[in-house]
């Protein structure tokens, strides 16, 4: 059933043709007169004091623009939540990729050559390179205790309940860093003088970059302009890092008297220096009744935040809130900390903390089932949340979702019951290839956490043009995920207009209102609703003016603009009236709604090579309404591929706080051959506060694959893997004994 003209239909991707034919221009494609190419001189040691900087003699340094911390006209800071990260190291070094000096030259190869001819003398200090070293405060490298943020969530009486448990468990789960591997490395072009700063580039959040430039230059807001250029993927990797890169490029331009400066990282520099997913360690102590009822959870969650705060407190928040998974648990304690280490700061990555804590709880549930002698599906049947239940933060579960039915649908599709029974018999043969089936159940909160959406105060606008078209004005960026297309569909739906009438304006802070960052699965659910409401307002304006009687939207807009000179409607975020949140106690409605899912896998483990190959993958999810089924399924498939990579292959190897394997030949993401066919199914239960009933879904598919895979490995081998990536090397140690 679809009562809509555009919503729920697979409208073709708006910018798809330009991208397919190569007509779309990315930052590094622009030909700019007088352009200088920028490069960065970095520290190479994880922690120390800079004692001197030397330029190789006889090299024509006068041809180069050279910037150090002393050239910063305002504050030496890359402004995020708090201002602890310098734009350029000034005396002190806190990670091995820290930027110390910037160089620019008209010849891109000369500037690469030059940066090898700068020698930075550093007096090394003992670094902190692991979560354990950070916890021991040996030494203290940040604040008083190396802790960026601590979050406590408590519900009921976890200690009392734990004592009564029939089964008590205590297990620790580890997850590794992950590199985004967006197809386009970070790139920015800047032109900066005291008259104004213009930054164009690849980014998710133009207003974050705007804020950072404003703070660093200490220029009035209106003198800073940031425009997003066609962006080749983000996955969170272009949420906070472009602020740093924009400051660097703008500083070089400033020093060069306003000449345009481009810094475009190559893949190696991008992998080594930009943010990655936070590594985590989660200890879960739990208590279950004899029948499998979950009595208590006590979760200690630790995230490695790297050298500076950046977004770690917010990542920690989402990790903590998702730590008890989709379960009714009357007695709960979550103690979560984000810790400082001397590595490049870890940052946003699709899922934003939730994949880490959901991995732990979903593995833990399968381990508990085995200890209780229950099928993992039976254990979940007993404990899954139901509408009206009280969630971890005291939030009443309002979503009318039947999680048991959702789970059963995935289990039926994968033929779980039959395989669960037959595989152990097959595996008893001497064939070294063992089979397993497993699944995970999980959720992902849509939009910013708690009251943050209210604080963002997002605005989107629509504008009618003289020629009868409609411009969508929002700061939300298209980065391959489909924002352009979804906004077009929603605006067309509200106006009852054909989609070709709608143009989504490329985000530019001088043109578009601040609809917030393009993160947190909020673009469709939150900003899409603003676009819808602005569209409904425009329709009402036209009707009130006595226009639109013949249904000709273009004609009505033309007439209105001719009569009144302009046609513009805006919509500002209003929280759903039920939402209450207290940031000090962490009590209340953490998210307006959640998307829900069950992912099931059938896999083979080859005990000759310890390789795990996923043979079949079923992804069932409830996402409110899929506004564009083709794009939605693509999001799910891509997220599952990224999740399989995180679970099995993608290992960041750290040496002295640096990513040692910062090349695509040594950091391997899944190819088509490594992936199964991913079968995507949507349950649709329209969400009252989303456009056309839609909820966020961009991050959801990252959360479920890793635990589902390791649960299936538990079934195949009767072992308990607790770590991702579960590389063949890790699995060999588990199977053969370390």
């Amino acid at each position: 059933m679809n009562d809509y003209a555009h919503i729920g239909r697979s409208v073709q991707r708006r910018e798809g043709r330009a991208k397919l034919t190569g007509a779309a221009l990315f930052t590094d494609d622009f030909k700019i007169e007088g352009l200088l190419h920028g490069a960065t001189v970095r520290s190479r040691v994880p922690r120390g004091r800079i004692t001197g900087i030397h330029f190789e003699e006889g090299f024509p340094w006068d041809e180069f623009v050279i910037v150090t911390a002393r050239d910063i006209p305002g504050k030496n800071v890359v402004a995020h939540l708090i201002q602890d990260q310098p734009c350029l190291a000034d005396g002190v070094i806190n990670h091995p990729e820290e930027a110390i000096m910037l160089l620019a030259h008209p010849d891109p190869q000369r500037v690469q050559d030059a940066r090898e001819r700068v020698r930075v003398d550093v007096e090394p200090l003992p670094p902190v390179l692991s979560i354990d070293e950070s916890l021991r405060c040996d030494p203290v490298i940040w604040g008083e205790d190396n802790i960026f943020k601590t979050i406590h969530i408590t519900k009921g009486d976890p200690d009392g309940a734990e004592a009564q448990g029939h089964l008590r468990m205590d297990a620790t789960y580890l997850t590794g860093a992950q590199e985004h591997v967006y197809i386009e490395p970070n790139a920015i072009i800047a032109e900066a003088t005291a008259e104004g700063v213009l930054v164009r580039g690849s980014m998710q959040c133009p207003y974050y970059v705007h804020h950072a430039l404003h703070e660093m230059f200490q220029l009035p807001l209106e003198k800073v302009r940031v425009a997003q250029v066609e962006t080749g993927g983000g996955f969170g990797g272009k949420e906070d890092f472009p602020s740093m890169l924009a400051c660097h490029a703008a500083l070089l331009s400033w020093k060069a008297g306003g000449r345009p400066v481009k810094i475009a990282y190559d893949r190696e520099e991008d992998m080594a220096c930009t943010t990655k997913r936070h590594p985590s360690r989660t200890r879960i102590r739990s208590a279950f009744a004899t029948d499998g009822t979950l009595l208590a959870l006590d979760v200690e969650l630790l995230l490695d935040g790297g050298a500076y705060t950046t977004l770690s407190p917010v990542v920690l928040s989402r990790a903590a809130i998702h730590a008890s998974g989709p379960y009714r648990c009357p007695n709960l304690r979550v103690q979560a900390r984000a810790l400082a280490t001397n590595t490049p700061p870890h940052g946003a990555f699709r899922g934003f903390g939730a994949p880490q804590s959901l991995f732990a709880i979903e593995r833990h549930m399968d381990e508990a089932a085995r200890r209780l002698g229950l099928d993992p599906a039976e254990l979940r049947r007993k404990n899954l949340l139901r509408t009206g239940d009280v969630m971890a933060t005291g939030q009443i579960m309002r979503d009318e979702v039947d999680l048991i039915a959702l789970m059963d649908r995935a289990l039926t599709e994968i033929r779980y019951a039959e395989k669960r029974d037959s595989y152990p018999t097959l595996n008893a043969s001497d064939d070294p290839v063992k089979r397993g089936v497993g699944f995970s159940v999980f959720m992902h909160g849509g939009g910013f956490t708690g009251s943050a959406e209210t604080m963002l105060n997002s605005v989107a606008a629509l504008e009618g043009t003289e020629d009868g078209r409609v411009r969508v004005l929002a700061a939300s960026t298209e980065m391959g995920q489909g924002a352009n297309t979804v906004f077009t569909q929603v605006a067309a739906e509200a106006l009852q207009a054909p989609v070709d009438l709608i143009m989504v304006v490329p985000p530019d802070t001088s043109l578009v209102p601040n609809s917030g960052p393009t993160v947190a699965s909020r673009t469709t659910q939150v900003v899409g609703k603003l676009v819808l409401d602005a569209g409904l307002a425009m329709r009402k304006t036209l009707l009130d003016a006595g226009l639109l009687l013949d249904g000709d939207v273009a004609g009505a807009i033309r007439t209105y603009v001719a009569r009144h000179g302009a046609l513009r409607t805006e919509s500002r975020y209003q929280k759903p009236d039920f939402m209450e949140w207290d940031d000090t106690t962490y009590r209340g409605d953490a998210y307006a709604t959640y998307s829900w899912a069950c992912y099931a896998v059938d896999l083979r483990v080859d005990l000759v090579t310890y390789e795990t190959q996923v043979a079949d993958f079923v992804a069932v999810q409830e996402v409110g309404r899929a506004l564009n089924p083709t794009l939605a399924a693509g999001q799910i498939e891509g997220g599952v591929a990224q999740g399989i990579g995180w679970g099995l292959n993608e290992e960041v190897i750290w040496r002295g706080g640096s990513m040692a394997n910062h090349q695509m030949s040594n950091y391997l993401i899944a190819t088509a051959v490594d992936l199964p066919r991913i079968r995507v199914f949507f349950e649709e239960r329209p969400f009252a506060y989303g456009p056309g009933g839609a909820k966020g879904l961009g991050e959801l598919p990252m959360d479920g694959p890793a635990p589902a895979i390791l649960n299936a490995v538990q079934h195949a081998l009767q072992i308990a893997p607790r770590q991702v990536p579960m590389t063949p090397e890790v699995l060999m140690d588990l199977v053969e004994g370390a």
Partner: protein
Amino acid sequence: MRGQPSLCDVLAPLNLDEALALRAAHPEARPLAGGTDLMVPFAAGRLPDRLFLNLWGLEELRGITVSDGEVTFGALTLFREIAAHPLFQREFPNLVRSAKATGALAIQSRGSLGGNIANGSPAADTPPSLLVYGAELELTSLRGSRWVPYADFHTGYKRSLLAPDELITRIRVPRPRAGGFHYFRKVGTRQAQAISKVSLAAWARTGNGHIQELRIALGSVAPMPIRARGAEKALLGRSGASLPLDAALEALQADISPIDDLRSSARFRRKVAGNLLADMLRGLALV
């Protein structure tokens, strides 16, 4: 790209004679065939060479000749040509499989057999197959040509018998008798487009229920591609029904000397090399 083309020169001979003369005159010039190995460190700014000898256009180094007893490959034979050849599917399946396991289609369409050998990577995919088929190499200079067994060619990590004025010009492989047993398995970090962590190739001929001939070779477990001569010796002449698996595995561990690196650990390589040998012998016992 961090490599700087403006700092490099390329010598571009028009024929093999010119190439050999330039090679003799400029021993520091790095021979450049398909470039698939060299361009990766070049782009990363890690290739020290500044002078290159381009072999790509030399027709004398192309072509595959099949005679009654052997197949001769020009050094510039592409992996794609090996993979597509109908005779090789039948007679040299290991070579076909290892050619198909090398990089992506683009690499297979540019990478050459001679280049793969000359680059000397212990992780290269085709050398173990060449070793088990008893390949020989023709090394040519202005001084003349000589044939050397491929098994003797590599003398250490990225070291070989190739003299500074020589080029690999041809690769010759005897055609194995029909009915042999062929085994090739590459273990990488993923199923395609990965550098190997361990690879094992084997060729055997059985008769009267016994192993009459056997060659086993491995990649990524020593400073160079190697024959597992100890393991071969433990198995040669033995009955397929009662293969001395433990002795062969023990001998294999002495044959190899793997290291820890970014791709894997010595421990994993030792264990999986043994597992591959056992897997190969399971197949052989069924023949």
